[in-house]
């Protein structure tokens, strides 16, 4: 393997406008903070398990269980905020990448080939629409642009508010078990609503990435005077939206369920309801995560289509 020295392009042409790495680093930092919080809770949980194994006081185990739950869920949320920050970095860099393509493509493009008629055709990556102008953003892209930040803000309130409440409830276990049981239900309901909201915020950021890819693809093609080829919304993107909405509704339903449990005084009824509500809230998160997988798969497809389109413009001018 030979070794050569390559001098990178001096950013006089505008490459200095490519966003720096700070948002990405903050994302990683937030995730590591989440990891630290979860490890503290892990140690707490192991001590609760040891107390149980030794036949210790149930109140002690309940108190530890409360704050470790609150801390772990807040830690998960913090790590997910890290994911959201990283996605925001990706959105910004996709815009910078589109600017770079707009800079380079006029100089790389082959002489304009045969002009394609507007309409639709099938490609290996799915149905493609050909239009004269850049496509308008889809409803989900507009909605995502508005909603990602409020979702994350509400998530932060629910997650960290729930964590504070878990500390309060933990202190009430010995003195007022009834109140602690009620607060425990609120902690679980609130924090998992927060988890649902943060995953929804992440989903909206993924939709923003898809919107940015669509918009930048249109801008690039019009900038070199070509007809605009755009992938039609694939089934995976539609399923992503459905799963996200379903998951969020389940998380709202579990909050309602826990609000009901918070008003119960019979330990048997609380046990029955909690037995079902715990997995229900996890089911909701599972739906949201499944939607996120489909969003990522759609992004991969959109990127694949962009590369194919760029190669076509460079080699055939169409």
């Amino acid at each position, binding site marked *: 393997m030979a070794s050569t020295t390559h001098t*990178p392009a001096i950013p006089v042409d505008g490459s200095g406008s490519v966003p720096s790495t700070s948002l990405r680093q903050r994302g990683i930092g937030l995730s590591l903070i989440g990891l630290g919080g979860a490890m503290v809770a892990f140690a707490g949980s192991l001590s609760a398990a040891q107390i149980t194994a030794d036949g210790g006081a149930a109140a002690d185990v309940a108190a530890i269980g409360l704050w470790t739950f609150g801390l772990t869920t807040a830690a998960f949320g913090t790590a997910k905020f890290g994911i959201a920050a990283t996605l925001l970095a990706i959105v910004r860099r996709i815009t910078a990448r589109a600017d770079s393509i707009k800079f380079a493509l006029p100089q790389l493009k082959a002489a304009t080939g045969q002009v394609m008629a507007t309409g639709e055709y099938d490609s290996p990556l799915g149905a493609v629409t050909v239009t004269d102008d850049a496509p308008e953003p889809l409803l989900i892209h507009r909605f995502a642009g508005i909603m990602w930040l409020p979702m994350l803000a509400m998530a932060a309130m629910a997650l960290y508010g729930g964590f504070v409440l878990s500390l309060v409830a933990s202190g009430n276990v010995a003195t007022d078990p009834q109140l602690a049981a009620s607060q425990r239900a609120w902690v679980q309901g609130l924090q998992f609503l927060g988890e649902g909201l943060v995953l929804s915020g992440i989903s909206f950021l993924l939709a923003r990435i898809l919107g940015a890819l669509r918009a930048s693809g249109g801008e690039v093609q019009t900038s070199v005077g070509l007809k605009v080829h755009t992938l039609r919304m694939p089934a995976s993107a539609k399923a992503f939206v459905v799963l996200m909405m379903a998951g969020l509704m389940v998380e709202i339903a579990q909050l309602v369920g826990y609000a009901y449990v918070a008003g119960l005084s019979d330990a048997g009824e609380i046990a029955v309801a909690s037995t079902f509500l715990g997995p229900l809230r996890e089911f909701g998160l599972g739906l949201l995560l499944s939607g996120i997988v489909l969003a990522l798969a759609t992004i991969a497809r959109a990127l694949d289509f962009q*590369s194919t389109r760029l190669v076509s413009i460079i080699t055939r001018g169409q």
Partner: protein
Amino acid sequence: MTTSIRSDFDVETSTAAFAFNLPQRAGRLLWAPMLGMALMAFPVGLLIAGVRASTIQQGGDAATIAALGHFGPAVMFIGFAAVFAAVSFAIARILGTLRNGSGLVQQATGGTVQALRMLPTAKAFIGLMAMAMMILVGAVIAHFIVGAAILGGDASALASAETWSIRLEAVRRVGVIVYLVAITLGLATIAEVIRFQAIRLRELPAEAAR
């Protein structure tokens, strides 16, 4: 293939587009089966929880309730292990698409194809993902073992069912947080690759003109 040294990025060079590497090929193949597995496991986990709640309400057998208390989370966390794996594989697929697609564009210009060498964040992403998967699968297996022992009439397993629940829940949580950190690192890798592409694209016209 030659090694090209840039002061801003560690790259490898070629005259042709780079293909998907092994983790990226695995990502392209496995994201969908993993998602399918998760979508099957979640409803089953919920169903087991419903059966357990109903058994508690009817004052059912304590061993059955305790065993279901282990089988339910086990199935639910098969779902989580699978869905987090699907997320990770989808990220690997995106990285492969970026690597291959960027190469095809550079190749089309007739210039040298440059691709980032595997970033430290990418290596950590793969390592942590594997670790998280093993933690979650280990916890799932332990849940099944404890549940089976309880159903098999093991009195000590029944007595320690709650202790094991707390322990395994703690282990599952560690698995989830490690997965979340891995996913952040995977996405951070995507962000860095796109940044490289944005810079590399601006170099292509000058190279093509030579």
